[in-house]
């Protein structure tokens, strides 16, 4: 079987789709160089650079999609959505409703997210739960190369706007670009299974809103996405040594959220621990709680999330982002 790194998988799935569908075009800042392999295969009409004008080019992507293109618009980081959220909040997410269901926005917004490499709090946010709050947006957050490629294909076929987030710690190329920059002198806590892994010969779309159990467990289910999934897996191993059977559920998409899987996990284990690199309050972890509470499932609940602005210093950021120790402690706490 083929092996690929995370971003390679996305680009490969994208290339496969571009070869079939001429309506797919890709643009964003520095895209001609960042996606140079797409550029030399699909040419400058389909792979374009933009000025540093997110409001204009993300906004333009919305109507370009409405006019029949399938734009993949890239941002340097999800954090920079701040300058152009209007395009998603008030336009992309609302056109289908506004038009009475008659017009849709098949747009993919692709952006790196997440921390763990010392870039500071304006450049390491996750924001997936935040974006998922907006009705009409689909938010995809894969944790492995195989999911990344498959879900990217799904995003390209989806009729509505999709935000597709690539965690920088899983992305060899972003981590090299923004982190190491060719150095051998820095080390990042990269989850190997997330950064590189087996991928299918030909990409097939994976279903949205379908979580996957990465590890079964009877005592507690740890629910997460992206790097958190791998931290959860590490924690589950530690917990196993302490006689605690912890499963890991990888959500894969935050919106739609796999409420069926969440309810089943709560039902089966009676304990949920949400590990979320996005901010704790008013986000994904709360939504998980609401889903099981609404269903009337008695459950113990804890969460290990990012509670504050992410600090720059590596040792501080390691404490603030969900890590194995915090997850282990949270689960132990629930078990006692």
């Amino acid at each position, binding site marked *: 079987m083929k092996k690929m790194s995370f971003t390679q998988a996305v680009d490969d799935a994208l290339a496969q789709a571009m070869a079939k569908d001429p309506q797919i075009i890709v643009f964003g800042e520095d895209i001609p160089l960042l996606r140079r392999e797409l550029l030399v295969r699909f040419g400058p009409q389909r792979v374009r650079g933009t000025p540093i004008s997110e409001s204009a080019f993300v906004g333009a992507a919305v109507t370009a999609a409405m*006019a029949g293109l399938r734009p993949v618009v890239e941002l340097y980081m999800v954090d920079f959505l701040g300058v152009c959220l209007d395009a998603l909040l008030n336009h992309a997410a609302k056109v289908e409703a506004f038009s009475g269901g008659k017009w849709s926005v098949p747009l993919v917004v692709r952006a790196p997210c997440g921390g763990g490499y010392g870039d500071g709090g304006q450049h390491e946010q996750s924001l997936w739960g935040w974006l998922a709050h907006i009705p009409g947006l689909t938010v995809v957050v894969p944790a492995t190369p195989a999911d990344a490629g498959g879900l990217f294909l799904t995003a390209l076929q989806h009729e509505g706007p999709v935000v597709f987030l690539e965690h920088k710690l899983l992305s060899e190329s972003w981590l090299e670009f923004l982190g190491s920059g060719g150095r051998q002198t820095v080390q990042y806590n990269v989850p190997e299974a997330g950064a590189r892994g087996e991928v299918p010969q030909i990409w097939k779309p994976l279903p949205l809103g379908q979580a996957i159990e990465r590890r079964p467990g009877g005592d507690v289910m740890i629910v997460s996405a992206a790097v958190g999934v791998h931290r959860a897996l590490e924690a589950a191993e530690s917990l196993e040594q302490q006689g605690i059977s912890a499963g890991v559920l990888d959500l894969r998409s935050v919106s739609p959220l796999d409420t069926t899987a969440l309810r089943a996990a709560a039902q089966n284990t009676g304990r949920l621990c949400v590990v979320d690199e996005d901010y704790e309050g008013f986000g994904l972890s709360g939504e998980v709680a609401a889903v099981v509470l609404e269903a009337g499932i008695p459950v113990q609940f804890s969460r290990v999330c990012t509670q504050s602005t992410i600090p720059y210093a590596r040792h501080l950021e390691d404490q603030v982002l969900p890590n194995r120790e915090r997850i282990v402690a949270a689960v132990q706490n629930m078990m006692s």
Partner: protein
Amino acid sequence: MPPDLWQLYSLMFKCRRFEEAVAKLWHDGLISGEMHLGTGEEAIVAGVVSLLQEGDALALDHRGTAALLVRGVDPVLLVRELLGYPEGLCGGRGGHMHLFSQPHLAVSSGIVGASGPAATGFGLAAQYQNPGAVAVAFFGEGAMNQGMLLESLNLAAVWQLPVIFVCKNDGWAITSTDGSMTAGDLNERARGLGVPVIEIDGRDVSDVWQAAQTALERARSGQGPTFLHARCVHFEAHFLGFQLLRMVRHPLREMPRVAVPLTHAILKKDGEPFRIRLAGLRKVLAAVWRTVRDPRRGLAHDPLWRTRRLLRADLSRLQAMENDLTREVDHIIASALVGVPS
């Protein structure tokens, strides 16, 4: 080729009657929230939109009703949408500021400046998959201070997109005058963002039509965007029920509502010295005054009146046309209201 003034006048006249009818619906309480009319800007709308063809796109702001009418959107669907009927253009879900018509590639937005990125995206799609087609953005001069619109001018220029940016400059953004909140010069701004400018008299439909023709030719032949800067006046000011205008129209009723609390405030014990308070008062009065005395609400600034003058030679044809259009609009409104269980 000169424009067909009869055709343009008929479009303008229809828009005017249509919006007047909408105003009545609003006053009758059949429309609940804000209602921004475009009465006064008909020459711009008709002059530009009448030149659009199948496949061309239209990105509108909060004042887009007339443009959709000229573009050929079913007027009954339009009225029903404004009324919030399930049978409306958007099932009653979009409404006055969010009118969408896929067959016409027409979008609206109540977010000031959003028509810039929207037209740019349509322009990109046209360039890529439908060369020769164009996209038009309508917006006010106030929107020219909104970053996303400025960014869009540059982006359209960089990509050489077929976009016509139409600035309907009525000199007001709600209660703010252009001069007070816009520094520099809009034409220089557009040029500094790489977009050539044509300045026109937005009350003169021929002038608009000629300029639009030029801009459209540039766009259709791959020469990139144009900024059309057209001055106009909005007879209903910002929106229906606009307080400043109510003060002009019903001074005895409305003035005290404003003046009494104002007097209280200026006399309140704590606060800045009287000299500074007076400077504040002067600002308020100036805004009221500018509205009261706006010379532009006069007939001479009405694009309809100005065009009508040119056609008066054949008064009977003119009146027959006007009567027909009035009946047509009455019929549209009646049809929209009738047969729909509320």
